[in-house]
């Protein structure tokens, strides 16, 4: 299988989808390939902070200026992905007045609007702030949903003619080295489609496709170094992991930052129904395989309870790790990953390595993804000889054309108040198109208030990939972590998809949920996991499913018939919920490659 494209973008995170949208809007023929789901890499594993720039206002003012500019743009073009929470830099007694003043001045120098609050005023805004917080600076931080944002960028790109392929891994880059020269050119890539092309269907045949491209853009983030290797160029990305823990409810409705020089575990971001504690910063060798350690989680709580003591008691849903694609130009020699710049670098491999047709993008921050994409697209257009202006700062993303009409959602679609409100916030301008169904529209995910209509809409794009459905809708991301709804979501795949596909999709979703959940299992969430296990074992026999084994199910074992009748043999006569001690849920086995 072969195809041709103008620009081949590798990586379906914020950078990749941003570039795909930008180029597509300029009329470039774009193909984007991503080895997992959209946001599979680092984008889906961040704390969802829309920076005001306040965090960089002392250490990195150019980044701060860029942040506040992009912050304003995203509020506009991505309104259905952004919640304007506002943010606080709070100062505890042991934090210095000097730094507080430096931060304040820095913000002002960078054009970041500020307001200084007393401790009491800050607590009036956020009652759960610690009693001894003595001052705070209010800044326009916000919360942003990275999943929704990437999906919207991809959708916009598709609307402008781009082809987006997920579960499509680059297995090789095609490098053309004309004999007798020392020039080299990247002319395309060999792609392995895990389950065929187009939207995903579990179990479809793997396909290999050769995509020839006029220009290849390496937007693989922390994986950019590995791709560079395929083209024989050195891209020295330093992956640095950071841990984040998700609480069950929002302890705060404002982003809380600690007002001190950048350190670990100093931010709490309200995100949808939850709050996210972040984060740590530690170099790792491999972006895919690194230790996820309890001490990192402990550090988050230890530090952040100083700011918001109620976190001590908070129920936690899961902990996840992300790897930053840090990059520093050769020779900088920074020791601590925390000191490596968050600025981004466009590596033009023609200039740098004598390899034409290939550009890598490394470093950077989520908040400024659009500006990065614009700069890359300018560069690529220049190489491709396309002259068109960037329009991504002005044209709203699909879903953000107008705010979701809440009253409509409630009255017209017969949804209860908080469900209608949540749905309309997620769907934005697509509310009517998605919820305006004549079919019964029950709530499928109760925790996050996701209805059947919204799930069906997501399935249209995501295929049988329930993790993709999840990131589009938030279904199974609430307190029960899919305990009550994962099978309902799977049921939504039927009858379009066959039973083996539905089972595979269900299993994959459960494993992905478990991957993050197992790091936060104490107190309430441990009890939830125990209940989920019991539910799944007793209602779906998930701990020992005869339908999954090669043996014929011993149906007699389920119905012993009249007294005296003997059915089955040995331990198979046990009730269906008699799970094996070595059940499928041992943490070590579950290094599932989910998102």
């Amino acid at each position, binding site marked *: 299988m072969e195809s041709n494209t103008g620009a081949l973008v590798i990586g379906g995170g914020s950078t990749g989808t941003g570039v795909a949208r930008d180029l597509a809007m300029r009329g470039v023929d774009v193909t984007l390939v991503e080895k997992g789901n959209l946001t599979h890499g680092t984008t889906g594993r961040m704390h969802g902070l829309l920076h005001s720039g306040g965090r960089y206002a002392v250490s990195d003012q150019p980044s701060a200026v860029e942040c506040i500019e992009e912050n304003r743009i995203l509020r506009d073009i991505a309104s259905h992905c952004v919640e304007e929470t506002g943010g606080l830099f709070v100062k505890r007694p042991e934090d210095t007045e000097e730094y507080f003043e430096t931060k304040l001045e820095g913000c002002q120098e960078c054009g970041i609007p500020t307001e200084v609050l007393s401790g009491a005023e800050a607590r009036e805004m956020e009652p759960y702030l610690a009693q001894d917080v003595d001052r705070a600076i209010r800044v326009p931080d916000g919360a942003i949903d990275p999943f929704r944002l990437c999906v919207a960028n991809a959708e916009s790109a598709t609307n402008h003619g781009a082809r987006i392929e997920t579960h499509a891994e680059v297995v090789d880059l095609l490098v053309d080295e004309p004999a007798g020269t020392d020039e080299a050119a990247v002319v395309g890539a060999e792609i392995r489609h895990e389950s065929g092309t187009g939207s995903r269907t579990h179990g479809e045949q793997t396909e290999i496709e050769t995509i020839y491209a006029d220009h290849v853009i390496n937007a693989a983030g922390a994986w950019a170094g590995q791709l560079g290797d395929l083209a024989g160029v050195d891209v020295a990305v330093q992956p640095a992991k950071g841990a984040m823990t998700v609480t069950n409810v929002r302890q705060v409705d404002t982003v809380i930052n600690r007002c001190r020089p950048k350190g670990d575990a100093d931010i709490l971001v309200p995100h949808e129904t939850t709050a996210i504690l972040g984060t740590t910063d530690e170099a790792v060798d491999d972006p895919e395989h690194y230790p996820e350690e309890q001490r990192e989680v402990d550090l988050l709580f230890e530090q952040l309870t100083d700011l918001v003591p109620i976190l001590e008691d908070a129920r936690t849903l899961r902990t996840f790790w992300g790897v930053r694609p840090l990059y520093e130009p050769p020779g900088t020699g920074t020791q601590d990953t925390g000191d490596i710049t968050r600025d981004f670098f466009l590596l033009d491999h023609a200039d740098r390595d004598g390899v034409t047709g290939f550009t890598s993008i490394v470093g950077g921050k989520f908040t400024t993804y659009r500006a990065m994409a614009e700069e890359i697209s300018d560069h690529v257009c220049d190489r491709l000889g396309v002259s068109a202006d960037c329009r991504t700062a002005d044209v709203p993303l699909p879903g953000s054309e107008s705010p979701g009409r809440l009253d409509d959602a409630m009255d017209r679609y017969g949804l209860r108040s908080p469900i209608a409100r949540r749905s309309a916030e997620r769907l934005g301008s697509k509310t009517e198109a998605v919820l305006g169904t004549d079919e019964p529209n029950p709530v499928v995910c109760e925790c996050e208030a996701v209805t059947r209509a919204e799930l069906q809409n997501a399935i249209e794009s995501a295929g049988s990939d329930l993790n993709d459905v999840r990131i589009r809708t938030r279904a199974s991301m*609430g307190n029960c972590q899919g305990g009550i709804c994962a099978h309902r979501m799977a049921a939504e795949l039927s009858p379009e998809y066959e039973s083996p596909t539905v089972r595979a999709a269900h299993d994959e979703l459960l494993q992905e949920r478990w991957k993050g959940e197992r790091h936060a299992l104490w107190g309430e969430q441990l009890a939830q996991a125990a209940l989920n296990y019991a539910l799944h074992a007793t209602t779906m026999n998930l701990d020992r499913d005869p339908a999954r084994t090669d043996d014929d199910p011993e149906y007699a074992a389920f119905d012993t018939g009249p007294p005296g009748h003997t059915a089955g043999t040995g331990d198979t006569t046990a009730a269906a919920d008699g799970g094996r001690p070595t059940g499928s849920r041992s943490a070590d086995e579950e290094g599932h490659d989910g998102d």
Partner: protein
Amino acid sequence: MFGHAPDDGDESDETESSCGCEAGSGESDGSAESRSTSEVRSDGGEPSDERRPTSELCSDGGIDADVPGDPGSAGGAGSHPSSDDEFEPVQVFPDSTEQDLRPGADSCYKCSTCDTNCPVAEVDDEFPGPKFQGPEQWRLSRDDAPEIDDSIDKCSNCMRCDHACPTDVPLSQMHNTARGRYVDDQLSKLSIQYLRKKILSNYGRLGRLGSLFPRTTNFVMGNRAVRWITDRTLGITDEREFPEFATQTFRSWWDERGGAQVQSEDRRVAYFHGDYANYNTPEVGKALVRVFESFGYEVAVPRQRCSGTPMFANGMLDDARRAATVNVTEFDALIEEGYDVVCSCTSCSMALRQEYPELFDIDGTERVAANTYDAVEYLRIHEDLREELADAETDADDELPDLAYHAPCHARNQGLAEQALEVGDAVEGVDVDDVGDSCSGISGTYGWKSKHYDTSMAIGDEMFDHMEDSEAETGMTECPTCAMQMEHGTGYDVRHTLELLEATLVGEGEAW
């Protein structure tokens, strides 16, 4: 007259000491059972697991976190010594309808036991049930706009969900708070719905008026035409007959007899009679006084207002707070003088014990909550009631009928569902039949609303059936509105457990 002039002295200094009562005296073992499951979870395991149980979390989230010894989280001071010094949110909200109960959602595992125990959800498919009304809705809520679903109006406030929840989600607190928000923010003050809520929840005012001319009022309210009009205009059902006002209120009787007839330094109870026993069933109040005096108690009847139960149930939290302030102030002053508080209505005792601390931050609330008892419960704790009843001279066989007993939901929530059966068992010649654990369906003012009448009767069906099946043809319960429902559904005469005690132990009271 009773000898306890209202003492408005500032009791706040004393409040601190009250937390000791809770763990200390044996008396409290029999009380505050309603929330006692929180203790089970508070002994957590390893240090890393020591995240505080959620019932305390919700008190952190609530306005009363700064009051020690919160009986609402019966784990008590012992199990979370750190809650006061470690974390103390400032009271920033103007009133409790604004409190943030989202953290209360942490203890919900969505097991749905509350939904399966909800009598309204059982008969009304449109009602989403307590799990949605409580933890789900709170978790999904945002702080910046009213968005309480109007199905909150269908909750009858029977509080069975509290009793059902295995993990102490503060369900009724969530419902009460949500209902308060709904009425405050989403209901027009000019709507019939609001007016009806106002009228029904302020029954005491109506009662005071009605009792001025009880016979006239009873005649007018008994008139079918009048009831037809109230149904059509106010949405108060014309299916029910308005309770009759007594020709003499309890308080007027109390004054007339010269107040307390027994004086005692160490056996003192302050009687919270509430509106209904005062205006409609003074025989219950009289029974309480005579029974307690027969045991040598000095009874005080301080100034008081409605317990607030109908106000919580109608989302009138401001009205409820005003009433609660009077009650807490008056009764707290008497507790200072060695009195314990006894109630004859189980919804009143529920309000003083659980809802006040959950919803309000009034000086003395915690102490009143910790020292309030159902009257029969109190006697069972302090007296050998079974022995006394067994030895009673009264020949009950001749005059007392067998009884079909219904335990009100609010008695059930206080762990008192069995006590009347045990009391009845001790009375020779009287059989007390349990008519099952279903809800009567009326839930105070709920069943009085035209729109809820059918639901109310559908819920009551099971109880009616059981009453019909029982040999007894007289009903017994401790809740006045359950009594109305029992009477309405079966035509039986319905009496109060205190009246049974009075007939057996004192030999006085209304004829049976």
